């Protein structure tokens, strides 16, 4: 594993020994929670080395937000009307772009195979990877959303609500996206296919999220759609890692 | 008879709708049969190749 340095190789070895005889022994070395923690830390450490890559989805989000005033009108009053849609479409497309990073490097260098063979619950490891992915992409997108909203004429009072909605929604998006990413592992130039697979499944998140944002902008209570977003995130959290793990196994066969 | 084709003034919508559906039905029949033929030809070809290899 040429990407690991000494810091990571040791716990990873505890996580995923290739030798089948050692597998049983290793299972006693790391509990499921340990495994999640190690995988999570590993992903975070490795991603922070390639900081440039993390900026791409954010830059894309900013670009998309720029496109709409140019394409429609610079009048803030009109843009305010469109703000929920623009913010969410931008965040959704940004998160789609970021999905490529989820499994690409690990599939490339064999780490994913190690995970599958490690004897650890692949579902737990998928959860860890998705959490890491959200922290690296979804959360930054959520932090950027208020900026995008301000540029579209949204009043500052609505911004916390927007941040919250996109934060919760992006959790669901990362989870849903992990399934498509796992299914398209190893397919060359799978970007368009991945989008085609993920977008229909993401529509409920878009609908509830945009509605929550719209209510926040008008100063009304956005609790109802936010709860629905939360429900989607929880549902995704329980089912998506399972599906992603199964999909990874299929892709590695 | 003319009244039938006129469809109460909606002829421009009703008949194209039926035409499209008929087209989809016919396309499916043609497509399914062609897929079967292709599979049979492919299987025949594979068998021939297997016989040629000692």
């Amino acid at each position, binding site marked *: 594993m040429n990407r690991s340095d000494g810091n990571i190789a040791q716990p990873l070895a505890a996580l995923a020994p290739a030798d089948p005889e050692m597998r049983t022994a290793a299972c006693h070395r790391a509990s499921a929670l340990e495994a999640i923690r190690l995988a999570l830390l590993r992903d975070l450490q490795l991603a922070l080395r390639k900081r440039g890559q993390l900026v791409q989805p954010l830059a894309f989000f900013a670009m998309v937000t720029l496109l709409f005033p140019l394409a429609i009108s610079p009048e803030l009053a009109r843009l305010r009307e469109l703000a929920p849609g623009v913010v969410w479409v931008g965040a959704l497309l940004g998160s789609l772009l970021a999905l490529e990073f989820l499994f690409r490097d690990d599939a490339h260098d064999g780490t994913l195979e190690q995970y599958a063979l490690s004897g650890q619950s692949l579902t737990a490891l998928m959860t860890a990877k998705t959490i890491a992915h959200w922290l690296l992409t979804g959360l930054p997108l959520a932090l950027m959303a208020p900026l995008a909203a301000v540029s579209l004429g949204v009043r500052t009072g609505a911004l916390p609500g927007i941040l919250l909605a996109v934060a919760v929604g992006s959790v669901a998006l990362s989870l849903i996206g992990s399934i498509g990413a796992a299914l398209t592992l190893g397919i060359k130039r799978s970007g368009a296919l991945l989008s085609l*697979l993920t977008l*229909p*499944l993401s529509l409920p998140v878009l609908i509830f999220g945009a509605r929550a944002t719209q209510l926040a902008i008008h100063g009304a209570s956005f609790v109802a759609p936010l709860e629905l977003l939360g429900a989607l995130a929880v549902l995704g959290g329980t089912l998506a890692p399972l599906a992603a793990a199964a999909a990874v196994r299929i892709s590695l066969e | 008879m003319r009244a*039938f084709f006129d469809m109460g*003034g909606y002829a421009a919508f009703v008949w194209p709708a039926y035409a499209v559906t008929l087209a989809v039905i016919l396309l499916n029949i043609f497509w399914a049969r062609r897929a079967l033929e292709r*599979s049979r030809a492919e299987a025949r070809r594979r*068998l021939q190749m297997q016989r040629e290899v000692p």
Partner: protein
Amino acid sequence: MNWTWFHRLASPPHVYALAARLTRWFAWPAALCIAAGLWGGLVLAPPDYLQGDGFRILYVHAPSAWMSLMVYVTMAGAAAIGLIWRMKVAHAVAASCAPIGASFTVAALVTGALWGQPMWGTYWEWDPRLTSELVLLFLYLGYMGLRAGIEDPQRADRASAMLAVVGVVNVPIIHYSVTWWNSLHQAPSVMRLAKPAMPLGMLVPLLLMLLGFTLFFIALLLTRLRGEVLARERTASWIREVVRA
């Protein structure tokens, strides 16, 4: 209870022969039902008090929409069986369903649009049903795209099966959220027919068309299934007999 007939469904040569024999038993009744339905719907049924003769599009739109959803559920069911019991035949069924379902989804969308123009004054309307049909089309295209994108046939079977199962779980969620979204914006009402209940003269042709389309689907499925089963049996000896015939 003798379950041999069920176990034999896992055997490709048996399924191939069975499909070949059964096709005509579905194809001809399908043609009959559709012909009868057309006669009833186009000629015999009285015009709707609101929509006049325009409502007759129902007799092609409703069966198409029914097909799009029914075929997807069948596809997902077969996919699940293929995944759980690792049955090649089940995967062959799922693969056969996809093009049929996708084409009827397109038919449903086009006939829906043609119905919309005289009724609502617009070819497209973002009502829950049409919007959900559109999403269903993308689900089909995604499935077919994934199959096409994976080279290894077994991996393609299993990955697309996974996608179909995930999709079918999402269909109710998507439909609910689209309906919720639509109700917020108080969009004009969806195509409605003479309420309360449809008179028998209108209902019976509709049922005949629904039945006819379903039988047609089975006939198509059986035809495509034979090809799919053949393609999955690379070196089996039973192919020799079949191909010579």
